[in-house]
């Protein structure tokens, strides 16, 4: 155990740096540990799958998050999802509709009138749109920094979803259906791919310290997948993981004494219970917990970042610091082999029922610079090629005004953008009608987006299955999803 503590760095596979010791040395060093531990544990430490005969086939997936074979060669190895709770206004950010400005205050034509009559006359965008980059991608003036990456972005303008309430639409975006209790996209990815760094969870979520996003912990639920695929929330301050350290930290020798005693008790117990693999797994979980104390702390130690990098993410400015810290954390996690990182904002700040102009602008001001910083940083470290960045909320907002100056929920047409991970930048995909109401060209269902993300990661949405209650479950369920090939080819 002292080895684990003092030589922690040897276990870490930092992508792009590859500082792992040559295998023989590592194996030899580990063998010092091996005496008291089960073969499974040793194998786990070596990053190897357990011997095939040790674990029944059906159980193997339940015990670990080891990398698993892919369905096809991947374009992306990791995903950073910037989830925008509340539903950002597509017509004010990514999908310019000059006709709204022209007919501002006039009643909408019948075919784009709000079917629930909650909104009335058309509302022109309060912002100007500008063209960016060689591609000339049009983005709102409130996204000046992201605009610098226009040639890396693919904006899908023809998204649509199945519900216009937050919770159901959030479930649809996260889990593929408008019912609660299913596994989220990242949980499926962790289940399907495992992860590269066994000292960190495969699926990490970064909520705002100010509070949980709407729908709380369900945002990172494993549903009925094994709990090892649940999202682990990391905090931006203090101990990154719940109970990672005791309230009053213990000196290393005391900590070591405790863990050694526990190991002694457990080894003795295991020797009296031959061939009970669950016991080995539990021993391994305590060892992982001990390793995480270092790996998680290290992963989130932003003090190691240069002042320049910190400024790149906006850590030096009050308005951008909170989101910037999480963007920087996301890069450090992905760099260390975490498979899927989700960033959340507190509550649902994009839900601009009233005063859309100010609300949307405030959200942009808090996130535009940090997101641009993340893209820049990923790119300069060569990580953007294999890291897919996905930006979007659960739906868009109505072209008509709610009250005087607000916009209501809008599921029939909205936008998301993707970058990196094999995405061909500088393009738009699909379109809404002139008013931004219905997705009309190359319509993209949430399941299509899911299928595409899985595809980029090397997974086939039709083959990624989990048997449950006599049925093979899939992220896309029975939706006839399609992979949006044009996004990456």
């Amino acid at each position, binding site marked *: 155990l002292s080895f684990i503590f003092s030589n922690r760095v040897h276990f870490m596979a930092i992508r792009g740096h590859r500082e792992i010791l040559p295998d023989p040395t590592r194996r030899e060093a580990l063998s010092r540990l091996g005496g008291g531990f089960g073969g499974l544990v040793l194998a786990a430490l070596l990053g190897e799958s357990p011997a095939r005969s040790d674990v029944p086939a059906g159980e193997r997936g*339940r015990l670990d998050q080891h990398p698993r074979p892919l369905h096809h060669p991947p374009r992306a190895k990791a995903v950073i999802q910037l989830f925008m709770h509340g539903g950002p206004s597509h017509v004010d950010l990514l999908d310019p509709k000059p006709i709204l400005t022209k007919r501002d205050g006039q009643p909408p034509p019948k075919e784009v009138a709000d079917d629930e009559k909650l909104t009335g006359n058309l509302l022109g965008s309060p912002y100007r749109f500008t063209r960016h980059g060689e591609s000339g991608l049009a983005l709102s003036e409130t996204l000046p920094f992201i605009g610098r990456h226009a040639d890396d972005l693919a904006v899908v303008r023809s998204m649509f979803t199945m519900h216009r309430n937050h919770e159901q639409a959030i479930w649809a975006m996260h889990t593929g259906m408008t019912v609660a209790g299913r596994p989220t996209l990242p949980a499926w990815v962790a289940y399907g791919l495992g992860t590269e760094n066994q000292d960190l969870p495969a699926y990490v979520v970064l909520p705002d310290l100010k509070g949980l996003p709407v*729908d709380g912990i369900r945002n990172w639920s494993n549903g009925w997948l094994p709990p090892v695929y649940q999202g*682990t929330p990391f905090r931006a301050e203090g101990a990154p*993981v719940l*109970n990672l350290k005791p309230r009053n930290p213990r000196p290393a020798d005391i900590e070591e*004494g405790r863990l050694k*005693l526990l190991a002694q008790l457990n080894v003795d117990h295991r020797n*009296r219970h031959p061939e009970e693999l669950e*016991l080995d797994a539990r021993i391994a*979980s305590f060892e992982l917990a001990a390793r995480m104390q270092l790996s998680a702390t290290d992963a989130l130690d932003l003090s190691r970042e240069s002042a320049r990098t910190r400024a790149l993410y906006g850590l030096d400015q009050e308005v951008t610091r909170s989101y910037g810290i999480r963007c920087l954390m996301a890069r450090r996690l992905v760099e260390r082999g975490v498979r899927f990182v989700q960033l959340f904002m507190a509550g649902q700040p994009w839900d601009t029922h009233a005063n859309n102009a100010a609300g949307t602008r405030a959200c942009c001001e808090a996130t535009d610079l940090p997101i641009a910083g993340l893209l820049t940083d990923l790119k300069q470290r060569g990580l953007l090629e294999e890291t897919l960045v996905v930006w979007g909320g659960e739906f868009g907002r109505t072209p008509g005004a709610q009250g005087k100056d607000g916009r209501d929920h809008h599921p029939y047409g909205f936008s998301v953008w993707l970058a990196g991970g094999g995405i061909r930048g500088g393009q738009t995909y699909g379109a809404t009608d002139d008013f931004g109401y219905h997705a009309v060209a190359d319509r993209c269902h949430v399941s299509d987006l899911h299928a595409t993300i899985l595809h980029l990661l090397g997974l086939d949405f039709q083959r990624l299955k989990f048997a449950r209650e006599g049925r093979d479950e899939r992220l896309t369920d029975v939706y006839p999803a399609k992979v949006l090939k044009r996004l990456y080819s």
Partner: protein
Amino acid sequence: LVWREVLEESSTNGVQALFSEGRFMSRHGLVSASLSLALAAVCATGSQADPPRFETDIAPILRDHCFKCHGAEVRNGGLDLRTVAAILHGGDTGAAVVPGKSGESLIVEQISSRAMPPAKDAKLSDLEVATVRGWIDAGARGESHVGPSGARAATTWWSFHPPRRPQIPAVRQAEQVRNPVDAFLLARLEAKGLSFSPEASRLTLLRRLCFDFWGLPPTPEQTDQFLTDTRPDAVERLINSLLASPRYGERWGRHWLDVAGYADSEGILDADYERAAAWRYRDYVIRSFNADTPYDRFLQLQIAGDEVVDYPAVFRTRKTLGPEVVEALVATGYLRCASDTSRPDFVNIKNAPGYYYQTLEDTMKIVASSVMGLTLQCAKCHSHKYDPLTQEEYYRVQAIFMSGYRPAHWVPQVERKLSEATACQQAEASAYNASIDRQVAELNAKAQALKTAFATRLFDDRLAKLPEPIREDTRLALAAKPGQATDVQKYLAAKFGAVLHPPEKELNGLLEGMYPDYKAQAAGIVATVARLQSTKRAFPEIRAFYDLPGDAKTPILKRGDYTQPGALVRPGVPLALETAQPFSWSPPPADAPTSGRRLALAKWLTQRDHPLTARVMVNRIWLLHFGEGIVSTPDNFGRTGALPDHPELLDWLATEFVARGWSVKAMHRLILNSTAYRQVSQLDPSSPAHAKAKRADPEDRLLWRQRMRRVEAEVLRDSMLAISGVLNRRMFGAPVSLVNKGDGEVVAPADASGLRRSIYLNVRRSQPLTLLQSFDQPVMETNCTRRDVSTVASQALNLLNSDTSMKYAEALARRVENVGPESAVARAVRLALDRPARPAERSALDLFLGTQTELYARLLAKAKSEPTAAERQQGRHRALTDLCQMLLSSNEFAYVD
């Protein structure tokens, strides 16, 4: 074999000869279900004229023979045979089927010429080919065709027929047989040349029994008593005493609450509204298990308690409801467990019925999965792809619950409640409360008059203090009508208005300060009002399920979509389930206060020979005592579920359960007094018998040894509390509210209520107790028919570092410090693990305590060279706390042998 009986029964229809064509499933040696269903097609009792159905008759044949190459993943020739639409669409060579013309259908050409399935794959039998032909000739209809009402969808699937009492098999090692349970198991073991393992030690048995029945470890006193009890029936006595304790209901009530999907909040929306009175159902369940309420009665009350006790009549005619009626109403809380976030303002939103239908559908899923072992939900959008359950039948079952859950006339959850009172009590109470309201109104008027009077006095008193020359002018200025005031008057009003006429909200305080008289009189009135208000009559709320007035119309929903209602259906149940008594219901008179639909379901479900009710429950009891069910999918006894490992045993237990008056405790006694239950769970590497058994049955399906099990989340927490000596044993009542610490951790409150058993903690769906959640406490989206056992690092972090775990460890340390002659270490081990410390272990623990004490003492001494005695003592306490915490984190603590 039950299987043979089913087939022999079929043979009366003259198809015995076909038996030889059946394929055999290798693992269980059971006849292939495809044969069963093919048989069903021709020997459908009493409905020879009915054409084969796609879902029940054709799809299984195609699945067994064709899906491999024409299904989800592979589609040779572009052909997908999974749905009628796909079959009609056909593949590269055109439609596979011409409806009505089997002779012209490609598929028939292929299968009857034996060209397909290709090569060495098993060909279709003549009967199967005939069935496919029959289906095509009848029009090749599929999912949307729900068949004529009343037609029995025949099936030979085992779980759709009543359990038959099998003969108890003879065994060679009769001395191993304590009761028939052993005979059934041993017969199968002996057939493989195996036998039971030796009996577990007394101590192991004690722990196993305590955890099974109480979810708590034995106390040292219990241990001493049991280990010194030399009577031959000591184990039986222990079982009886454990069953007689109220702790039993808390443990087994929790199991039932899992399958019922119990929660104290409404779910769905982010707000996750709290449920006020749900806990009374939780208490009902605990009491019912403690009282050993017969399971048939238990179900009847939960599904139709109001109708069983004729609540509407009692409500109208009696003075009080009485405890029996109250209990029956509380029991229907079972049907109120599903998420239901409906609010009064939902009537305005477009998709409100979506929310309502979800509650209705979840309720059906809970009933079907917990009581019937059916995946009925699969028949919501189309007929079940595997089991003989049609879409129409799904909506017939829905019609039963539509009596109370009616999306067309929804009652928001906050308003859907009964009060614990009769009509007479309610009338009396409202008359009384009205009189109180009148008195209160009079008193309030009096208070107002008093205030007005004193306000005038204040005006006069303050006016009198103004200089004489402007007094009258000011009075007039304030009395002047707006708009008619002169400039001088406006000035005076602005200057003195607020002083002379203080704002209403400040007035009371001012008057109280200035006039003791006023203060006393006003206080008197307020006190009287409060006293009167407190005498108002209110009745406790019951979160019950009850029928709404009027006729509940239930449409079939096309593709399960509520915006596409189809034909109306009457209440009913799946016809393929063979029961002596059919589901019997006829529409009540128009003015009947309740429809009787649920009572009809309850009666149908709890008839003696129901194919599923008793089987599903005994399987659940078995699962909870052996860690695995006889059917390993407790919520699915259909074709996609697992087959029973011991079908005869399951049926024997099911019939025995009914014969013993549906007594759950009787089943515990029966199962736990078996040799099988009492075996060791550990594998003995030196035992040739074990080596042989491991080869023959590596997964222990035949039960040649017991199974080691990890304790559930609640048991882990409750045991930590018990061992630390701080468990608060208070039973029942409103749930203990939890505390969200703000860093994401949810903990129990710091006071004594936070030390209660986990079953009494608030089950807020969105805010589970972190400790319980990390150890696989189910998230109640609908219900949980089987707990997961996961092993993840967050569990270890919680045990090693959380304040909660530290607190329990410290309590244990205090409990073992400085008591009696026994050393603290020895006592800690005895309490935590129910056994004396082994010598080697003892020295390791002593060594740890010594080393760790020294480290802590030096830490406390800081720069000083030598720690003081007090520092050493404190260091020892911390070291002992560490030791206790490691014991509570150990595998031995978390696993039961």
